[in-house]
């Protein structure tokens, strides 16, 4: 388990290092996601909280068309995953059931015509902080294995972290390990509590609050769980006048 996570983290962060620009980075992540998940391709749509779409990236031009399709038609797995804040898993797009292909009367036939047989959409989010959606495309029907599903969640988590860290990496040109996933000593809940606190301290969005906490951990070369504990214990305070 830990090894898979390390491999995926390495793969995604290498995309961040290889591409200075965000479109290039997102395209790289899509390629890496497709490779890890034995998919024919992947797409990412960055979205703001009101559902407005920002940039879109995909592993290749065919996938980019499928990714674009849902915004043209106004329906699709990406939008549903964003709205419901849950993964949307459709292993057989040809299944007309209302919780499978039948869910999207316009998207399904159009995407099928483009060769799509299965689609799996994963929100790029931390709690209520939403950044967008990762879509995984396959040209053959069939479910993700338990291992692939776990890997897809890891890809989504690492992509969120990489998106939040973009400005840090651009400045430092390196990716330092700050995520320790330490459940035992600094339980993860504390990191999310700290995120809520910093949001109020700085008057910024939840996503920005997490980006600031992570940037602080990078700058001070500390573990995220330690930084979070200090914030919750009020030993560390983020001021507006000290960016």
């Amino acid at each position, binding site marked *: *388990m830990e090894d898979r*996570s390390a491999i995926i983290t390495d793969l995604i962060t290498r995309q961040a290092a290889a591409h200075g620009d965000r479109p290039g980075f997102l395209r790289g992540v899509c390629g890496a996601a497709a490779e890890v998940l034995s998919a024919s391709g992947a797409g990412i749509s960055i979205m703001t*909280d009101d559902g407005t779409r920002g940039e879109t990236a995909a592993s290749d031009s065919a996938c980019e068309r499928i990714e674009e399709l849902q915004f043209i038609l106004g329906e699709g797995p990406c939008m549903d995953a964003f709205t*419901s*804040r*849950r*993964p*949307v*898993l*459709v*292993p057989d797009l040809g299944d007309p*059931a209302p*919780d*499978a292909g039948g869910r999207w009367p316009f998207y399904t036939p159009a995407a099928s015509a483009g060769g799509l047989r299965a689609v799996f959409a994963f*929100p790029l*989010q*931390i*709690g*209520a*902080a939403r950044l967008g959606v990762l879509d995984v495309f396959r040209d053959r029907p069939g*479910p993700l294995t*338990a291992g692939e*599903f*776990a890997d897809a*969640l*890891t890809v989504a988590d690492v992509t969120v972290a990489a998106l939040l860290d973009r400005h840090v990496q651009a400045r430092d040109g390196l990716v330092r390990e700050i995520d320790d996933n330490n*459940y*035992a000593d600094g*339980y*993860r*809940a*504390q990191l*999310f*509590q*700290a*995120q*809520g*606190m*910093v*949001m*109020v*301290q700085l*008057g910024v969005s*939840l996503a920005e609050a997490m980006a600031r906490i992570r940037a602080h951990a990078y700058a001070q070369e500390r573990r995220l769980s330690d930084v979070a504990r200090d914030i*919750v214990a009020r030993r560390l305070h983020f001021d507006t006048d000290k960016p």
Partner: protein
Amino acid sequence: MTTVSPERLAKIFVEVADTLVDDFDLIEFLQTLTDRAASLVGAGAVGLLLADERGKLEFMAGSDENVTLVELFQLQTDEGPCLEAVRTGRPVINVDLGAAAARWPRFAPRAAAAGFQSVHAFPLRLRSQVIGALNVFGTSLGGHLAEADVPVIQALTDVAAIALLQERAIRRGEVLSEQLQGALNSRVVIEQAKGAVAQSMGLTVDDAFAVIRGYARRHSWKLTDVAHAIVTDPEALARLKES
């Protein structure tokens, strides 16, 4: 030693079933359930943990949510009765914490130091899958389970599993994965809201949670919706502060 009267039992199951209406709030429901389980057998605390798809156990709801207790629940992602119940699919009953240091070197001493004498864990089963565990802590005052208590608590645990599905007839395994991820993310939103309220009102995160819960109850709003509004809408946070 407890002997639960059939009348009391019937009342609790009716109450729990009543909560399972069309549009119920999962986390609130699980809180009610852990609360009733605790009072039923006179336990010091009861908590519910969900296993995510990567094998980590995540705290979802408890009869009490103080920091020490949540850490005790969360610690079991590495070792402890819940991890055993999840791995074996069988309940762990009446383990004396004072004599369990060899079995759980990290968990047992910390649970004993928190004032608990005994511990139990019941697997949260869904068909062939185990998706989490219900954790019961006993004190010197109560919480030792009599033989007749075991099927009662297991039945309450099974009700929790049914609630997690939300949709009555699930055709596909994918829907369960979608639901579980949604539930885990809702829990993250609650932690974020706790932090925001703690910061804005100068409270501890424990007290912040009581404020959010009370506010949701007074207005008959769903806990998850209130938590979400707090971290995405500054006006919602201001209204809660004024109330």
